[in-house]
């Protein structure tokens, strides 16, 4: 399966938001990460750098993903003609505290264990530490640049192990249950575009 992965890191100091530059490995190794980070991620799966799928048509082409479930040994749910491009642009992660006042939607039972005991003090998350996640850029009307995704599953069918040949290396089913795409109508293989407004607080307990 042809697969390409490009991962780029950016680190953001809070006072330097307007002067970001890529860092090399040595610089990155020196980072202590006291303020927060900003990431841009690119993932290409079976797609060349120019955006075209790599050998993803025809029988038994290498662009496929197989799922084998517990209790179903030797039976593979195959996603064929499978390729995609994912981009997460300028996602920012910072440390923060949860608010000090409840919202009016409070439900303390969300923070209890199965025996009914609180997993955090007083079943009260106010003021707890959290990871604050935002997409701070591209917020104008009509801007959808936070998350882009092209995904293609040309055919879906089950394939079965056959002797020494595992099912995921076969293309015996002549038809397809379903084809699925996420894209944009602007042009062929243009990725779908989306935006996230607001703040996500991620915390464990």
């Amino acid at each position, binding site marked *: 399966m042809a697969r390409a992965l490009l991962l780029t890191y950016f680190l953001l100091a809070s006072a330097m938001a307007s002067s970001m530059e890529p860092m090399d490995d040595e610089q990155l190794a020196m980072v*202590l990460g*006291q303020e*927060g*980070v900003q*990431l841009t991620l690119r993932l290409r799966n079976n797609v060349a750098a120019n955006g075209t*799928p790599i050998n*993803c*048509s025809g029988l038994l082409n290498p662009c496929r993903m197989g799922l084998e*479930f*517990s*209790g*179903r040994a030797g039976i593979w*749910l195959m996603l064929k003609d499978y390729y995609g491009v994912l981009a997460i642009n300028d996602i920012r*992660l*910072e*440390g*923060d*505290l*949860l608010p000090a006042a409840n*919202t009016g*939607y*409070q*439900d303390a039972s*969300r923070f209890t264990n199965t*025996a009914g005991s609180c*997993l955090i003090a007083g079943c009260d*998350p106010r003021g707890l*530490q*959290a*990871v604050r996640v935002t997409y701070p850029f591209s917020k104008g*009307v009509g801007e959808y640049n936070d998350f882009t995704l092209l995904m293609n599953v*040309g055919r*879906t*069918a*089950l394939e*079965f192990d056959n002797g020494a040949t595992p099912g995921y290396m076969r293309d015996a089913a*002549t*038809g*397809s*249950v*379903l*084809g*699925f*795409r*996420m*894209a*944009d*109508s602007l042009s*062929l293989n243009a990725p779908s*575009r*989306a*935006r*996230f*407004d*607001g*703040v*996500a607080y*991620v915390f*464990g*307990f």
Partner: protein
Amino acid sequence: MNSLRSVLLLLSVFVGVLPAAGYGLALQAMSDDEMEGVSGAGIAVALENFRFMMAPTSYMEQVGTAPTGACTGSGGVASNINCWRRGDLRWYGINLSGAQNINGSGSHWNETSTCNPADAAMTCPRGGVIGGAGGWFSPFDNPYLMRAWSPAGMAYNGSLVNTDPNNPTKTIYEYLAPTNQPDYILSFWGEIEAGATRNPALQPLSVGLGTANGGGLLKSQTIIRGNAAGSIFRLFKFTETGATPLYGETFAMFYHSRLRGDFRFSVAQSSTVNSNAVGVPVVFANNEGLHFRNVDSFLPIGQLYYQALVLNAVGTSGNFSLTLTKIPNTAAVYNRFYGLDAGDTRGYQTALTAVRDWTVSCGADQSCLNYRLSHGYIRYGNWYPASAAWAAAGTRNTINANNDGILFRACPTCANFNAFARRPIVIDKRGETFSRQRTQNYSCNTGNSGGCVVGTGGPVSSASPGDYTRTYPTTTVNLGDARVEGLMIHQLNIISCQAGGGC
């Protein structure tokens, strides 16, 4: 590895930093000892000032395939009769946005026409941030949860599971929606295309159009305004054991859907921003379409741990099934599933007590609790006539009410349409003249002249049987409220049919 470690380590893989204890505004690495102090019971996601929007041109697509016995002609010819066409479905601009009552804070699919997300006629497909400025889609004190968990339940063989919370024997993974959250809008516009011939991986949407092959293209808009608080999605290993199991210990899914609010489906486009070109967003006409107002639904798909959605092969040609497993013929299981009161072998009395006063808690009545966990419902409108034992208010919808129940509306500048309904006759044991077909339904004057009143004649009176000119000329017609209660799914099997040969 516990769940908190999972998220922290996931973050650390990318950023090399971890939250500090005692200093909230900076990220610092945690020591192993500090991490050992984390309970690991869940990952919570709180969302403030939140909105998610796909671009109006971005879509998810279910791509069809040319069917066996495909149509080859168009119009009224033999080659266009008793045949099938490929169908493609596309959902564009999916968004989760606010339902705040702020005029101009929402927008249509062209992004320049503004609207009010709380408009009574549900004219506005996209709002601002959920809950308004400073509001919460997922409150931090009632957040979305993802956690590994060991709740009590019953196995397929009827044995109890996880009876001791301190020594659980089975663990699941679950996603929980908040139990209380503000209303929001989930909407998209869509295309149904019949007869397309394009290879979507190699050809743009403008090639191989269905409209060029005797098929067609229909654009539609779906707006849901409400919330899904209390919904639960779970993953676990199914509990059927034995040498020749029906399903076996396989990957199992569970979804309890709770949805409440309003729904609108429409197809009419506005007179100013319209297009029949594939992939081009349009503005849909106000008001028009099918509306469901004041909906409250609960659909239980699976039960811990004796019923679940599982996958299996169908034959050997590539097809598969998605099955909601059947209830085993084991008294401990089906008695819990049916939630029967002692001595009620048929379930009528159980159902009566469980659904009659649905706003009243079951208390410690275990049969009532079991019943309400395994039996779903869909309620359209605030319900009229109310049950005699139910004290909550219920009012009869007027014939053209647009704020409750199930209704059809025309666009504001459209002409009247003629509404007519001949509902199935409900035979009252006291005789037909007492049946609701006669006593509860509207009867209209002849000649499509309206004048509709609730009388004793019903929509087609006995005085003029077959008179289909007794219609109601209107721009809005209300069909009334409806309730589906006791919705229990004993077994469901969905089988694919196109992976190779028939099925």
